[in-house]
């Protein structure tokens, strides 16, 4: 106990601080955000020789090197950083403060990504040893629980899509699209039509992965542009279909947030030409419990579990996708599948017509567990409520944003949107010379951000916002207020916006370095070789 403390307890007033001084200052209208900037070195440049975080026990002398196969032995120890525990913890905590993660900001600006709250209890399930300690090579009898979850998730997604079978093998959305394209290819190959049917049709506002996956699988791609109202051009579709048509890969609603009301007609036109229809439901957030791929006549569809079903996006790492198909296409599903005979779950890897494995073993099991938990916690009514809330949030934000001077909402004039909107700042750019991208960077000074659109920019000076059901009205009001402020600055002090961000860790990335693979260094080894110019073996 300090002398100071004794003194203060001895004096009669509890505190000499006035009530006025003790009051917490009122917050400004927009928060005074400032991101941490630690100027942290790479971990490979930290530490010192001999520094240790854990003292690893010496191996049992009986386990002498000869018991380790020669091919697995290193000639030299690996060049790992040498650091103590606290320094490692501090390093990564610092780095974690230098980003604008989904749990920190009002993440409605990452349109098309469907950023929603991923409940933390689902992470607890995944970290539970009953999931985390499983090994993929365990005998089926010992993993009945997780097989049951995978099987039950398939039943849920069958109901959500209306399809007959679902594979949870794909590692993420593009892998799921690729699996669907591979199934389409296998289907026509089995019918002896593959040589004739070598064209896949998609739309410019469908996710570019549809075109990319179709090309990767060897198809030619025909892209439809929107008609004057912003809908996929049905006349163009009629001109595109024919005996060469293998499939239509289409998103609905598209990235503009506009729902294609003629989607059944699209499907009919393609079916009449003998093609299959695959529905990109990577983001099904606006239509859960409202409409289903099967009901519009589709033969295949896919979901990104890390979008609609709340599992983390994992920074481009392991997410999880699901592809759903009709009974006619089920033989081609990726293998293995999980089958249930009423008492026991069984892994079926003997599927001769399957397009093969998309991932090792059962896929990305932790994300399947999270998606299962999310669906079960909401139930059927909850899923529909999530979709309706997301659509309501989007149209509320649309109402607020369209009042900001300089912004416009191209296509389908006056119509409500589904779950997202692609706005245009073209007018603001013409008035001020400030680009949409620069507004998004300035938003980072207020603790949030936004993304423009895929390339090419069909909508000029684009901004794509997608508020999911996770955000409150207060969140959306704050987001709209930030955009309003940034747009006002563009008109009144454009330099402030052009030179943004001012309160963020990284000022600006050089775009040309993103274009040139020669400058990409995604590992320490690549950095030393490409950037430092060190000769490495």
């Amino acid at each position, binding site marked *: 106990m300090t002398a100071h403390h004794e003194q203060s307890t001895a004096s009669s007033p509890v505190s000499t601080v006035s009530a006025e001084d003790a009051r917490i200052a009122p917050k400004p209208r927009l928060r005074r955000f400032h991101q941490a900037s630690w100027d942290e070195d790479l971990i490979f440049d930290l530490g010192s020789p001999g520094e240790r975080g854990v003292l690893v026990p010496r191996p049992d002398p009986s386990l002498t090197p000869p018991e380790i196969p020669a091919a697995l032995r290193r000639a030299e120890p690996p060049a790992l950083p040498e650091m103590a525990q606290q320094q490692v913890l501090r390093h990564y905590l610092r780095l974690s403060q230098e980003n604008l993660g989904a749990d920190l900001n009002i993440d409605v600006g990452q349109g098309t990504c469907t950023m929603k709250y991923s409940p933390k209890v689902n992470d607890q399930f995944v970290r539970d040893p009953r999931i985390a300690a499983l090994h993929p090579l365990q005998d089926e009898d010992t993993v009945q629980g997780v097989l049951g979850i995978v099987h039950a998730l398939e039943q849920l997604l069958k109901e959500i899509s209306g399809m007959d079978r679902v594979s949870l093998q794909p590692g993420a959305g593009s892998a799921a699209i690729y699996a669907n394209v591979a199934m389409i290819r296998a289907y026509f190959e089995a019918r002896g039509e593959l040589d004739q049917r070598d064209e896949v049709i998609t739309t410019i506002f469908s996710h570019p992965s549809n075109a990319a996956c179709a090309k990767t699988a060897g198809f030619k791609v025909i892209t439809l542009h929107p008609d*004057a109202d912003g809908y996929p*051009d049905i006349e163009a579709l009629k001109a595109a279909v024919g005996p060469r048509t293998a499939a239509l890969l289409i998103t609905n609603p598209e990235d503009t947030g506009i729902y294609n009301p003629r989607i059944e007609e699209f499907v009919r036109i393609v079916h009449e030409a003998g093609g299959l229809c695959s529905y990109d439901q990577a983001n099904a957030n606006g239509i859960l419990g409202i409409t289903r791929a099967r009901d519009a006549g589709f033969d295949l569809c896919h979901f990104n579990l890390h979008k609609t079903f709340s599992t983390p996006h994992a920074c481009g790492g392991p997410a999880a996708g699901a592809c759903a198909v009709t009974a006619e296409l089920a033989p081609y599903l990726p293998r293995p599948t999980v089958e249930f005979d009423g008492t026991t779950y069984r892994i079926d890897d003997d599927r001769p017509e399957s397009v093969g494995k998309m991932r090792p073993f059962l896929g990305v099991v932790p994300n399947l567990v999270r998606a299962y938990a999310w669906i079960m916690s909401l139930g059927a009514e909850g899923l529909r409520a999530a979709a309706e809330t997301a659509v309501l949030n989007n149209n509320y934000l649309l109402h607020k944003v369209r009042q900001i001077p300089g912004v416009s909402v191209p296509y389908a004039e006056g119509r409500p949107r589904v779950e997202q909107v692609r706005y245009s700042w073209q007018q603001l750019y*013409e008035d001020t010379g400030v680009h949409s991208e620069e507004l998004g960077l300035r938003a980072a000074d207020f603790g949030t951000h936004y993304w423009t659109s895929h390339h090419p920019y069909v909508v000029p000076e684009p901004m794509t916002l997608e508020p999911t059901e996770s955000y409150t009205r207060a969140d959306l009001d704050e987001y709209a207020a930030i955009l309003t402020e940034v747009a006002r600055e563009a008109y009144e002090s454009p330099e402030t916006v052009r030179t943004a961000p001012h309160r963020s860790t990284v000022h600006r990335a050089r775009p040309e370095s993103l274009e040139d693979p020669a400058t990409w260094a995604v590992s320490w080894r690549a950095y030393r070789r490409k950037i430092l110019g060190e000769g490495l073996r």
Partner: protein
Amino acid sequence: MSSRIGLVVNPVAGLGGRVGLGGTDGPQVLQRARELGAEPLAGVRAALALREVRARLAAAAPTRHAGTSAPRLLTAAGEMGAEAAASADLDARIVYGAGALPAEGGTSAADTVAAVRAIAAEGVDLLLFAGGDGTARDVLAALEAFGGRPPCPVLGVPTGVKMHSAVFAVSARAAGEAAAAWLRRDGGVRLRDAEVMDRDDDGVRDGRVASRLYGWLPVPDVPVRVQQRKTGSTAPVPEAFGGIAAEVAERVGDGLLFLGPGTTTRAVAAELGAETSLTGVDVLALSPGKPARVLLADASEEALLGAGPAWIAVSPIGGQGFLLGRGNQQISPRVLRACGGRERLLVLCTEAKLAALGGRPLLLDTGDETLDAELAGHVPVVTGRRSTSLYRVTR
């Protein structure tokens, strides 16, 4: 070392538009425009562009050099440039017309040509000109007099009434931005050859505005910003040309190709291993695994008919979207029919250039109504290897 910009203002450009005369060509129209109370705005727009250049160069310069980042300006006297420079607080050296220019509003196309020549002869990193399509033609004529490639890149500050040419930025501010990006060699800014077009001398034809292609001038090509990339973005433009070339090679196989004019077709030809003319129609012989050979350069309609059936590759004109009938009249209805019509027509365009049309359709004006009707509808546009966009084309 600071950069050197040339500036030529056509002080009367755009006068006719504000008072509904649709253009300011010829002294009578000009006089009528003045009588109707038209106010000159070319100088105002030019000053706006210059202020944008100055601000952007200053923002990009290291703080201690901010004072020396201002460009050095070479221009003509009075309202042909010096006034705009003064209004933008830039020092300028007058290289044309000092003390000898006619009174206000009295300058002519000849003054524009002479001023451009004087500035280009001094050497500049970029020539900004404020005007319309007519001014762009004058600039083209002045620079063509130097022979070979134009001695400097140019960029139009749009102030005219008719804006058919692709040498203009979309606004004065955008011109300033593109100019600054070029002057500081920012982010891989390259040059592209842009069309100089103007309304046909015959004016309105068949109830539609007809325009003619006069040539190409190099302009800074400021790419769409790519900073906020996500996966799935389309290929950068150079890779796109490679993909289009691969598709053309696959379609044509062992055969002849009539290649229309323009920058896209030229870049595709380069990928195929041939150097073609920018403005003419060339006949190429393609053979799998071998570089393309130019059999005929700058071929006439008769020469194309004589060369025999071939595939035909054209690219839409930037800005307008004209596919046939502008700048490639050699590919006449007779040639198109002899080659097999739309079955043998390859339309080449990058996705970025297609998106820049803003949803406007591609345009046809072959002069043969029946053929135009046959070709109208949706045309497959080759955007890469095994990639086409089905795009509207109208008469």
